[in-house]
């Protein structure tokens, strides 16, 4: 049986999310939700000393019991507070399994594109972002890899910090021993990173990018002149704040700042994500592009305000 119905008037994505939220959070559900958050908050406070202690001792948290799902961390809005764990050198320890999101959320300033770069955005959007390099399973760059809905592991060592991302198998090995960028670096999806500590904040200088990534879903293209300064601060037992200041004289009129946060997910694990295994989009997109009527005339797209 196939049922198609007349669509309602077109609505923006933000509207739809609001409608969805309104549907889900009836008064009854809201009361249940508050109750659940309160219970989770109390549970998180009770469990905090065990979790933090295990992390500080470098122990692997106990796996969830059979049948218990391990992907859930502390509930949003119920993050425990307290001092961050520290490594043997006395630095705030970023080590652990993390997921993007959490209480900080993701936000950014408007993208300061030049008029020419903004026109290129409109052209990409007129093609429904079909040109997104991620659709070809190419490694996503920085900071986009920190918006992927997959976990990543941070391993903090005395002279380097290692990131192992499930998403697109991204790996970053960031020296923190004061060495400069090598002389022979080549353009790369994740660029080349060197870091240093400013108090409890890891500051990373990333450069030598290629121009084959987007910074997010919205056709946020860039050039190989891009340079990023990242700041990661472990703000508490289960949180890291993340900031990326992006400069690119090829497309930006001024630096662009993106901020987000990470939440600790001690019971998560890195699963295999071989994006190229069955990427039918490459074939399907070629077929779609044979039908220009499916794509919008770029002159109809208004400049972003």
């Amino acid at each position: 049986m196939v049922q198609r119905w007349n669509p309602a008037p077109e609505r923006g994505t933000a509207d739809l999310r609001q409608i969805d939220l309104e549907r889900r959070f009836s008064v009854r559900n809201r009361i249940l939700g508050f109750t659940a958050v309160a219970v989770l908050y109390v549970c998180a406070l009770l469990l905090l000393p065990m979790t933090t202690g295990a992390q500080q001792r470098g122990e692997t948290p106990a796996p969830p019991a059979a049948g218990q799902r391990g992907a859930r961390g502390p509930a949003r809005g119920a993050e425990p507070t307290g001092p961050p764990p520290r490594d043997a050198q006395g630095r705030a320890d970023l080590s652990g399994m993390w997921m993007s999101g959490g209480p900080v959320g993701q936000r950014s300033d408007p993208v300061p594109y030049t008029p020419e770069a903004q026109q290129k955005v409109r052209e990409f959007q007129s093609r429904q972002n079909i040109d997104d390099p991620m659709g070809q399973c190419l490694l996503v760059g920085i900071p986009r890899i920190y918006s992927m809905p997959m976990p990543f592991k941070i391993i903090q060592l005395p002279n380097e910090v290692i990131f192992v991302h499930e998403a697109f198998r991204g790996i970053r090995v960031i020296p923190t021993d004061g060495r400069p960028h090598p002389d022979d670096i080549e353009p790369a999806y994740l660029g080349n990173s060197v870091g240093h500590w400013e108090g409890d904040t890891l500051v990373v200088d990333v450069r030598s990018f290629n121009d084959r990534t987007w910074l997010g879903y919205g056709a946020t293209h860039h050039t190989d002149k891009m340079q990023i300064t990242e700041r990661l601060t472990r703000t508490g037992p289960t949180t890291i704040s993340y900031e990326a200041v992006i400069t690119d004289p090829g497309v930006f009129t001024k630096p662009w700042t993106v901020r987000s946060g990470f939440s600790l997910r001690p019971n998560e694990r890195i699963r295999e994500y071989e994006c190229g295994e069955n990427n039918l989009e490459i074939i399907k997109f070629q077929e779609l592009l044979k039908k220009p009527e499916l794509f919008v005339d770029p002159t109809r797209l208004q400049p972003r305000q």
Partner: protein
Amino acid sequence: MKRIAIISVLALLGAAVPVLAHHSFSAEYDGSKPVTVTGTLKSVDWRNPHIYYLLDVKDPSGKVVTWTFEGYPPNMLVRRPEGWTRDKVLARIGSQVTITGWLSRAGGNAAHSRQFTFADGAKMESGPGAGNGGPPAN
């Protein structure tokens, strides 16, 4: 304009757009064309970057046509709170299921799935929200 600007800023980070983890939804699917299909789950292709489900559907004349539904990547589906795993999903092959989603812009019997509802009432959010609010999950 202000609303457009807000949407644009959110969309840049993927915070308010369908989280597919891999490709643009609107490039391939029409969010204004929701669809509901009931049939027999023929197969499940449990591979990255997206799971594909084939559904055998009888048309009004009794002829069986096969629909293709795209869904979350395995790594996203198994992390959802409903607790679906590869084994649990594959065990449903041969079952009656109603799938909601949005039609492919390329036409044909192809769509991106949003939710499965099995004959015993079990539900599975199989893809992200999109489109005009047609079939909500759960």
